[in-house]
């Protein structure tokens, strides 16, 4: 399953790119699984997700929790807590 991943703010800076396409193994079912899988890809990902509890995620531009299933997702984004306003 090919999915577009997008990163924002310091998650983007730590990973070193704003977006990428990835081919996910079938065992990656939830957003939390995806974060764990990404951490295994390299130290830049491990750095970005070192405090995974604070990282927020969105599937197809809607906020989701780590338990959310990623089946059918086209775009998944990871970012720090928001600081607009």
């Amino acid at each position: 399953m090919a999915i577009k991943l997008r990163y924002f703010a310091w998650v983007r800076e730590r990973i070193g790119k704003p977006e990428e396409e990835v081919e996910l193994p079938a065992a990656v079912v939830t957003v939390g699984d995806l974060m764990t899988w990404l951490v295994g890809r390299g130290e830049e990902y491990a750095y970005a997700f070192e405090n995974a509890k604070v990282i927020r995620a969105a599937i197809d531009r809607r906020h989701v929790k780590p338990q959310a299933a990623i089946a059918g997702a086209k775009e998944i984004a990871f970012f720090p807590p928001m600081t607009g306003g």
Partner: protein
Amino acid sequence: MAMPATISVKVQREPFDVSAETALLTRGRTDVGALVTFTGICRGDENGQPIAALTLEHYPGMAEAEIESHVAEAARRWPLAGAIVIHRYGRIAPGEDIMMVATASSHRAAAFAAADFLMAYLKTRAPFWKQVEKAGGKSWVEAKADDDAAAARWTGPAGSNDQAAE
């Protein structure tokens, strides 16, 4: 018959003119008795240290969708004649406006409550991130627990928080 609410959501790089925007909420109608506006402005210091600028990053598409859904929710909860949210992105210098919320209603209670609701949600749910530029370099602004608490005040069923005390 009640006129439809005037709703406007914009995410833009350019500055905006608060009075020109709020005129859109009152022009041509006489059912507005209360207009509340909030403007977020870039301060010249953070924790006592001068800043050169803020840079706002956003998630295009999601930022607009998230704000629009909360404006629609505000219009369901309160009898609004209109609501405007404008949020800028990019580099913003001290003294410049960052964002504005305006709400119009027949009476002030609904206008104040809807503006507070929108601000609380924008802070915690709209995908924007502030980076501060100081003499020593750039750093990302950390989210405040206060902002989550402000949003939590509005998470009950429609209207249930209208009388809530701080």
